């Protein structure tokens, strides 16, 4: 889909952890900030500080447009999706609240929720997905009660790529006045997401996966009509605003962005989003690669078993095993002998693996990006065949 740069003979299928390579514009934008601007945004009035502020603002505007948000001040930059989801979850849930999540969550969501439950702050319901990982929105509705404050759902599973019906769940939340928080770690940049049409109140995402920014970048998007005062800031400090006061600002984005931002990361993140905005067939590309891999693997690799939910659009995230082989052994051979990079194990999602029946052994995971090709899949198929034949 895009030409690779400087990756040599390495085949990189660990894109669900972080994408690599990035579009060349990403490094160029970061270098431009570090080499030519370098200043702290929003803290001083000189030209370079203003240029740094413009760099950050361009990021807010780009993300707001991409996810159908009117107010760019409702884009909060974070270090990653975990930061954003903690900000949302721990920011809105208070003592005595009830929260709902699913059995397909990543630890970025389930750990903060579990911790709040363990500390006696909240009650938590975990809605069970089917054996392929798909949630029934009516099960989410049934779990709601008068104390339900928020529903937190992983849009696309980082384990098997299963895509959840967030619009239906969001509509139910909106009807009941319940805050809808979405983890878009694996979906942002692949599937269209609209804060308005999907009824999302708070949307957490990493910059470094399918939005092609660098590691250390992420964002929390807050719906235009969501009252920011419902979020209790986890972090307070310098914002460059209201400097005569020791009170934390109560307006966005300042109330949630204390401390100097990762401007180089934001520059790269913005360039990544702008690069994929020029491509209109990303999901189609992933669909082709995933279908091709699964068709060949099922026909040609002995003891191949995958955990993809049937009949759902492809996110390009595939979990599989070679029966009789440990996943760590296969991953090691793929890396050492064939230069193929993938991830094995539980992928920070123990509940999802329990749902799919792959706990505690875990799976091998291939995650495809805009840079991967059919030829790379052919190489991987031959490697897996060779391993499976012993």
């Amino acid at each position, binding site marked *: 889909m895009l030409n690779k740069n400087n990756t040599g003979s390495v085949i990189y299928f660990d894109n669900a952890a972080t994408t690599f390579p990035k579009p060349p514009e990403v490094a160029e934008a970061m270098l431009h900030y570090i080499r030519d601007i370098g200043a702290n945004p929003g803290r001083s009035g000189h030209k370079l500080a*203003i240029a740094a502020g413009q760099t950050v603002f361009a990021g807010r505007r780009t993300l707001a447009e991409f996810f159908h948000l009117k107010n760019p001040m409702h884009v909060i930059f974070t270090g990653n999706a975990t930061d954003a989801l903690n900000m949302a979850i721990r920011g809105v849930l208070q003592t005595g609240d009830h929260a709902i999540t699913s059995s397909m969550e990543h630890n970025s969501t389930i750990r903060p929720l579990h911790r709040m439950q363990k500390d006696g702050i909240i009650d938590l319901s975990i809605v069970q997905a089917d054996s392929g990982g798909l949630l029934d929105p009516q099960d989410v509705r049934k779990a709601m009660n008068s104390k339900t404050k928020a529903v937190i759902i992983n849009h696309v599973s980082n384990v098997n790529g299963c895509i959840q019906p967030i619009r239906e769940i969001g509509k139910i939340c909106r009807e009941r006045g319940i805050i809808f928080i979405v983890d878009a770690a694996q979906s942002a940049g692949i599937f269209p997401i609209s804060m308005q049409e999907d009824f999302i109140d708070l949307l957490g995402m990493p910059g470094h996966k399918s939005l092609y920014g660098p590691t250390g970048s992420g964002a929390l998007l807050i719906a235009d009509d969501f009252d920011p005062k419902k979020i209790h800031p986890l972090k307070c400090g310098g914002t460059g*605003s209201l400097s005569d006061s020791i009170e934390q600002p109560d307006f966005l984005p300042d109330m949630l962005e204390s401390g100097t931002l990762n401007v180089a990361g934001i520059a790269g993140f913005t360039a990544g989003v702008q690069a994929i905005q020029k491509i209109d067939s990303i999901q189609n590309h992933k669909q082709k690669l995933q279908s091709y891999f699964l068709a060949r693997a099922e026909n040609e690799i002995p003891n191949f078993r995958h955990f993809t939910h049937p009949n759902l659009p492809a996110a390009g995230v595939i979990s599989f095993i070679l029966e009789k082989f440990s996943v760590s052994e296969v991953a090691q051979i793929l890396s050492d002998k064939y230069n193929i990079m993938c991830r094995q194990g539980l992928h920070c999602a123990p509940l999802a693996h329990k749902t799919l029946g792959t706990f505690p052994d875990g799976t091998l995971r291939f995650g495809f990006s805009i840079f991967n090709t059919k030829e790379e899949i052919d190489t991987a198929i031959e490697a897996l065949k060779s391993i499976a034949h012993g």
Partner: protein
Amino acid sequence: MDKLKKSVILFHSTNYAIWAQNELQANGLPCKMISVPRQLSSDCGYCVQMETQDKPKAEQFLIAANIEFDRIDDL
């Protein structure tokens, strides 16, 4: 003489100052960012400077675009 007079729009946050400057310029209202004059505010950031004659238009525009500002002062 009025043409030479300058005014500044002050904001609670530099994030809004940058947003305002981008939108005002995009809509044909010339302006620039300057450091917040100490006699007007203790904030450490920047504000938007424009010609005083454009003040009513700018104010109207910012209100319509929902870009919050603190106040507009003449220099």
